[in-house]
């Protein structure tokens, strides 16, 4: 059965995609446990769930990247093995993956016609025709000869969607497509999906954002721990009031834990209230004590980085962070957050401007100092690229815990490693931070993201931290670990350790920070005091800046 046929069989009554009893076991976890769901034509089916709920595994299965251990896949009523991406594409199922799948060195057109291996010559004319057709359905303006790697992230996202539609004549699967988009971009995407839906396409939309599911979905399926724990049918979705729906979905997503989590949240409010009643500058409470009343500890003045092909650079960034302050950095991903973090950490030399840190009572210029010296002075950095950058996956937990103190006593004496010291330190840290590992000698790459993050947190906050830069500190972590990490940031702030928190989750910043800086295209477009209207103002800044 070919893709056109699958899509056009509207009236036969068979669903477009049926997954029946899909089970997939990954080492240590049951990623998908007996999942059954259907996707209808002309419908947006939202898959909702936390990280680790099994969404991504389900996507790999639907796109042919992974073959399930058990269960049946029926496309247009016919059972299929779906054992390669090619097979899925041939059945008309196109996927927009979470990670970029454009070849950066090829042009847009080349990226799109890659995979059509029929014929001797590349059929560019046919490609252009199809590109026009799809671009007009989406309402997008696309330059076919632009080199993919030079496009902005949101432009690349559009190309990814066109690429998925190229062969995906029956169904389109989108894996967290909004994580890199501006609010305006999200709206644009919603419009595109509406139009595509109208052509009879079945759409699977994966997200962990509740409101997106409620706004865009015709049907919502909630996953938890690899299982389907609830489905909301189109009728219910249309008839229920959004606030009510939200509550209902939260209940499904977290089950009994939902109550437990609210307990935790309340607990921490009490805790921060009691430990720092007369320290309004701690900025720790969620109702946002705005003013950084402590002494300034770090100053950035007109810090700039030249833009490059892959980055907006930084433009005359001015920032002052006070002792014990938690400063948030909000913005759409890829607008200079990473650059700012690396400039602070000393991983990137700045092109102009100055960075100064208060050290032993006086401000000293640190713009030219390397990572090592800044670390020694108490300026720490938790990278968002946990596995790729923050740790050496093929080395032990113990070694990774002292990675930034190589050659230093007590772990090294006369540059010779003291295994006993390293080991004891690791054991102590593992206990204190509750790092779940078989032992200090286990390669850190084998641990889960949350445990790796705990280890990094332990390393960066050890021995006299004074200001810590957190880049997406809770990204991809489960709720419990996320809360633990936030709690740690808050506690340290109460002890006078400043923090710069970069996050894609506004909710997180509103929970933690006193002030929130909004970045766009490498500039700070505004700093918002946390308060009742903060969320709207930050959103305005992000969108407004986007319109520039």
């Amino acid at each position: 059965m070919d893709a056109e046929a699958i899509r056009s069989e509207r009236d036969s009554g068979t669903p477009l995609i049926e997954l029946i009893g899909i089970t997939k076991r990954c080492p240590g976890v049951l990623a998908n446990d007996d999942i059954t769901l259907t996707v209808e034509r002309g419908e947006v089916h939202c898959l909702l769930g936390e990280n680790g709920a099994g969404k991504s595994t389900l996507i790999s299965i639907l796109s042919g990247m992974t073959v399930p251990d058990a269960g049946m896949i029926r496309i247009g009523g016919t059972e299929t093995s779906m054992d390669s991406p090619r097979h899925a594409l041939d059945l008309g199922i196109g996927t927009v993956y979470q990670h970029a799948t454009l070849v950066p060195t090829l042009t847009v057109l080349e990226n799109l016609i890659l995979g059509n291996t029929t014929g001797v010559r590349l059929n560019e004319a046919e490609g252009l025709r199809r590109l026009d057709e799809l671009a007009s359905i989406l309402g997008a303006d696309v330059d076919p000869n632009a080199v993919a790697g030079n496009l902005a992230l949101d432009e690349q996202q559009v190309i990814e969607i066109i690429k998925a539609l190229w062969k995906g004549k029956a169904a389109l699967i989108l894996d967290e497509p909004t994580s890199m988009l501006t609010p305006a971009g999200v709206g644009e995407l919603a419009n595109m999906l509406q139009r595509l839906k109208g052509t009879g396409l079945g759409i699977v939309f994966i997200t962990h954002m509740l409101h997106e599911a409620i706004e865009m979905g015709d049907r919502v399926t909630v996953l938890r721990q690899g299982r389907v724990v609830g489905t909301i049918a189109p009728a219910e979705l249309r008839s229920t009031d959004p606030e009510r729906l939200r509550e209902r979905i939260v209940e499904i997503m977290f089950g009994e834990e939902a109550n437990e989590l609210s307990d935790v949240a309340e607990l921490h409010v009490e805790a921060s209230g009691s430990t720092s009643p007369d320290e309004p500058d701690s900025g720790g409470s969620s109702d946002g004590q705005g003013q950084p009343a402590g002494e300034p500890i770090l100053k950035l003045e007109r810090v700039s980085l030249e833009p490059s092909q892959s980055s907006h650079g930084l433009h005359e960034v001015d920032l002052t962070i006070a002792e014990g302050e938690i400063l948030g950095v909000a913005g759409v991903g890829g607008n200079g957050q990473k650059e700012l973090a690396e400039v602070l950490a000393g991983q990137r030399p700045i092109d102009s401007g100055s960075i100064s840190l208060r050290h032993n009572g006086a401000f000293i210029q640190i713009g030219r100092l390397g990572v090592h010296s800044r670390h020694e002075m108490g300026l720490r950095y938790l990278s968002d690229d946990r596995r790729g950058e923050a740790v050496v996956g093929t080395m032990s937990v113990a070694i990774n815990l002292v990675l930034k103190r190589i050659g230093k006593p007590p772990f090294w004496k006369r540059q010779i490693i003291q295994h006993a010291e390293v080991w004891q330190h690791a054991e102590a840290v593992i206990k204190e931070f509750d790092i779940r590992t078989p032992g200090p000698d286990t390669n850190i790459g084998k641990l889960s993201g949350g445990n790796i993050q705990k280890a990094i947190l332990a390393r960066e906050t050890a021995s006299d931290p004074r200001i810590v830069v957190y880049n997406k500190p809770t990204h991809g972590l489960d709720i419990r670990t996320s809360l633990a990490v936030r709690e740690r940031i808050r506690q340290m702030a109460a002890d006078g350790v400043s923090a710069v928190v970069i996050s894609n989750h506004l909710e997180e910043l509103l929970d933690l920070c006193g002030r929130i800086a909004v970045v766009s295209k490498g500039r700070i477009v505004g700093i918002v005091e946390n308060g009742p209207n903060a969320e709207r103002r930050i959103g305005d800044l992000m969108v407004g800046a986007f319109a520039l």
Partner: protein
Amino acid sequence: MKPTDTKPPEMTDEHTVVSDGLAGGLSNAEDTPGISLGSSRMEKIRRSMLLTILPLVAAMVVGGLFLFALGRDPLAFYATMIHRAIISPSGLQETLIRMAPLLLISAGLIVAFSAGIWNLGGDGQFMLGAALVGGLAASSAEVMPRGLMLVLMLLIAGTLGAVWTIIPAVMKARYGINEIITTLMMSFIGVNLASLLVKVMFLDDRPGIQTPRTPVLDVADRLPTLFGTRVHSGVIIGVVAVVGVHLLMTRTSLGLRLKVLGANVKAAHHAGLGVSQLTIATFLLSGMFMGLAGGVEVLGVQGFVRADWNPSFGLVAVPLVFLARMNGWVTIAFVFLLSVLSIGGELATRDAGLPNQFGLLIVALVLLFMTVAEYFESRRLRGERTVWATMAVRFLSRGDAAGE
């Protein structure tokens, strides 16, 4: 069903280690230095024996088939080989002598590979060290005491080898230019320059010498021999070098820095390890050992350098060190094995009337079989079917799409 899909896909929510290009292709599979559990030691030894002996036997069987096809008696051939290389005292001495340059080269490669740097220009570095020593040793011996001369010559050889890596080192550190291209190019130039040195600058121009070569260093002035045998002290230098490098890599802070660089360049940056300096230091250290190997070979064995001489030790040692996983002790064992194969091979082929390159064939087979054995072992450890089932599935399933 793809046996390779072992990674929980949810973990891809975060970026997994993405190594960039060639530099990342070389990873330290060896576990972290030091911290290891004593209990698994026996299992480790047993496994490494299996990973070495089995491929060796397989290679000899395949080699034996060739011998048989050529009308030679494989058993007799191997018997001669082993006898000549290990059992007969003179053969054993030859084997040990052959180890000296290979050990030093391996030491240089261990440093480079641990830091993720493919120094494939060992031949040029080796030949330059050799040529300069070959040219200077004899005349220096006339004006200074032997001990001083030897030390000076080794210093010169090591320095020249290191100097020859400066260009690739700087290009890698500053511009990120791939070192495979640059070291290979420098190696071509180095080998040519060495030959030029021998032919022009250091030519022994007494009449009656057919192939151009440097003056001969008197046997009495060469590296001291050990315990009345012909085995020279270069072997000791080689062993010390490999053990020293091993300790450097496993015990010291510099070693760990290099290993971090080799395992994950981004992490090295992140940890503030001074990537450029470490890269350059690695090249210099690696080149020094290569040059030293050339010097030792001339001072210990050859006594002079002929213009057409180039033993190409550098390349053979590459897979060897890689298979030893940059472990010094394993490297010494492998170097011994390689020396046995090449010395035994050379002598046995001479007896059998075959070209001595036959030894290369055996070495190549051992290397390839060891690589394959390693592959199956790592799959077995990951719990992905048994060796033969995997093999059968692989062949039958046409490597299903891009499964691997």
